[in-house]
């Protein structure tokens, strides 16, 4: 009877396409918005994940997320270096400054300053120039998105200059970096240079980057740093989670994306449910005839579920295809860079589509189950 169920479904081409469209649209919206949401969340941590040299981040205990810097003292750096199990510890500056742009205006910049001698934490992938050029006077490296922002349409080329805090900043390299959360360009330079661009203050160390000694357990070193210095110490992954949690709890981002995803689910469920219900009602006479002929309720339930499953699988596949196509075609656009169709979003959307088709078919199944087969003898129209 599966064959009969499929023929019944495919025989009504308009409703079949309508059902697939409803589920595709709903699936696409859910997967797309979920992927964008997690992409945005990932962006909030771009400056953490781009630091690949150190396993441990040390910071003031009041720091809630990466963008909120509570300066440490130089003495804190030395105290961390003295903790058992620490192989090395370097300073990292993170701040912002205004720069005079080539067009004559002012543009806010994020500045990352790395240990002068080791350059620990500096970006590793360069599009143009080399990291070693950072050792030259007044030199900075700028991220690709920042370069495109300042010089739209121009090919990547070193040698351009900026002016920050009345100081010259010569661009000696262009770095690949993770897509940032804020649209401001990021410049990377030596620590000593960075603090001149923002103006010297009493305490300038934003974070201390630590690498544990070989064989030392990272968590144990973190615990020892916390106990010995009173500072917060956590792994890179823990700092990523802390930052994401901050945004989840303190911004409207998850609520707004959540509303969109919920609406997509509701619209998908309502439209698919209604269309499927109408489809069943219009076939009620046929279902009545099947019941009269001797098709059991269990078999009819299986037929309806099969129809729903086919529609669900087709709708899901089309929806995921459209979502993947969207991310594929937009992957080179700066403000959409780094967004992709996550497997977790696909899995969640799959579960949601399954729920939608089960909900959609429940009403129909109930309607058919309570149908008396004698209905077909009463005109059945």
């Amino acid at each position, binding site marked *: 009877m599966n064959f*009969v169920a499929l023929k019944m479904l495919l025989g009504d081409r308009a409703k079949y396409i309508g059902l697939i469209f409803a589920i595709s649209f709903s699936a696409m919206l859910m997967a797309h918005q979920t992927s964008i949401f997690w992409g945005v969340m990932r962006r909030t941590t771009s400056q953490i994940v781009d630091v690949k040299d150190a396993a441990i981040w040390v910071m003031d205990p009041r720091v809630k997320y990466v963008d909120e810097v509570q300066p440490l003292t130089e003495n804190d750096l030395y105290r961390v270096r003295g903790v058992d199990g620490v192989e090395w510890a370097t300073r990292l500056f993170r701040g912002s400054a205004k720069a005079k742009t080539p067009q004559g205006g002012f543009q806010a910049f994020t500045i990352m300053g790395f240990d002068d001698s080791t350059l620990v934490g500096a970006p590793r992938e360069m599009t143009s120039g080399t990291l070693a050029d950072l050792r030259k006077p007044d030199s900075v490296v700028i991220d690709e998105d920042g370069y495109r922002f300042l010089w739209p349409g121009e090919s990547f080329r070193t040698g351009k200059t900026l002016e920050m805090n009345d100081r010259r900043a010569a661009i000696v390299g262009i770095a690949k970096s993770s897509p940032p959360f804020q649209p401001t360009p990021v410049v990377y330079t030596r620590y000593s240079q960075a603090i001149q661009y923002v103006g010297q203050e009493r305490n300038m160390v934003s974070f201390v980057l630590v690498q544990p000694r070989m064989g030392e357990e990272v968590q144990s070193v973190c615990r020892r740093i916390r106990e010995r210095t009173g500072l917060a110490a956590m792994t890179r992954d823990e700092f990523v989670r802390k930052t994401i949690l901050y945004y989840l709890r303190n911004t409207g981002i998850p609520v707004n994306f959540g509303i969109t995803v919920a609406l997509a689910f509701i619209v998908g469920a309502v439209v698919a449910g209604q269309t499927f219900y109408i489809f069943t009602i219009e076939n009620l006479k046929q279902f009545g*005839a099947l019941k009269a*002929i001797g098709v059991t309720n269990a078999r009819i339930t299986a037929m309806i579920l099969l129809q729903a499953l086919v529609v669900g699988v087709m709708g899901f596949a089309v929806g995921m295809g459209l979502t993947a196509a969207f991310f594929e075609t937009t992957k080179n656009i700066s403000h959409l860079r780094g967004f992709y169709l996550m497997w977790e979003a696909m899995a969640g959307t799959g579960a949601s589509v399954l729920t939608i088709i089960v909900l959609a078919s429940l009403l129909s199944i109930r309607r058919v189950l309570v149908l008396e087969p004698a209905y077909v003898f*009463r005109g059945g129209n």
Partner: protein
Amino acid sequence: MARQEIAVECRELVKEFGRGESRTRVLRGIDLEVNLGDMSFLVGPSGCGKTTLLSVIAGLLEWTDGDLHVLGSDVSGMSGDEKVLFRRRNIGFMFQQFNLLPALTAAENVTVPLLAANVPRKEAMGKALALLDLLGLSGRSAALPSELSGGEQQRVALARALIHDPRLLVCDEPTSALDADTGHIVMELLSSVAVRPDRAVLVVTHDSRIFHFADSTAYMNDGRIVKVETKRTFEADFPRGNGAESTRSPEPVAIGPS
């Protein structure tokens, strides 16, 4: 107790719809016998309970009181699933509006009762094509119902009703959606193909033009059987060829008390 000669036996059969003050008694103590080997007609005015009685006999509707034996089995003792199985094995259906599945071809429609009984599709299709050939539809087996005439659709419905070789065939107004000539052809086919010594055919109809096909006719009015005629008595009253079948009232309700 098995009743081999009698296909259907109703005793004091009562059917009520609704509850309390809205309760309506549709069947008011039906006594009826349908014999194997006969084509039996159930006739009467609209609303007299014919279709309800047919539904009860076919196991599609529960009844309120009385006894019902179908093909020697006491239907009242059967569970819902047993009734479905009983229908699937023993009863064939022809509906007024044919009720063919519009997305299936003629041959595929005919296979449905066999598919419901888990017969492999290929085997079912072979039987369906043979039966359609017997009914003169060999060239139309791949057509959709929408591509068939009314008469062809009803012949497909007849094939579907007979494909699993049922012992009781119930037909609800099989000619009412057809013109006179087509209706006659369908009834000729029904008589020649469906009527067999081990099978009973029960037809509910208003159509006086086909009354002469009946071996026996039960007249209903107001939920009761008011008269039963056999072919012998009917033809004695209205010999064929004298135009009686076209002048006979389609609703002989004046007979007996209401």
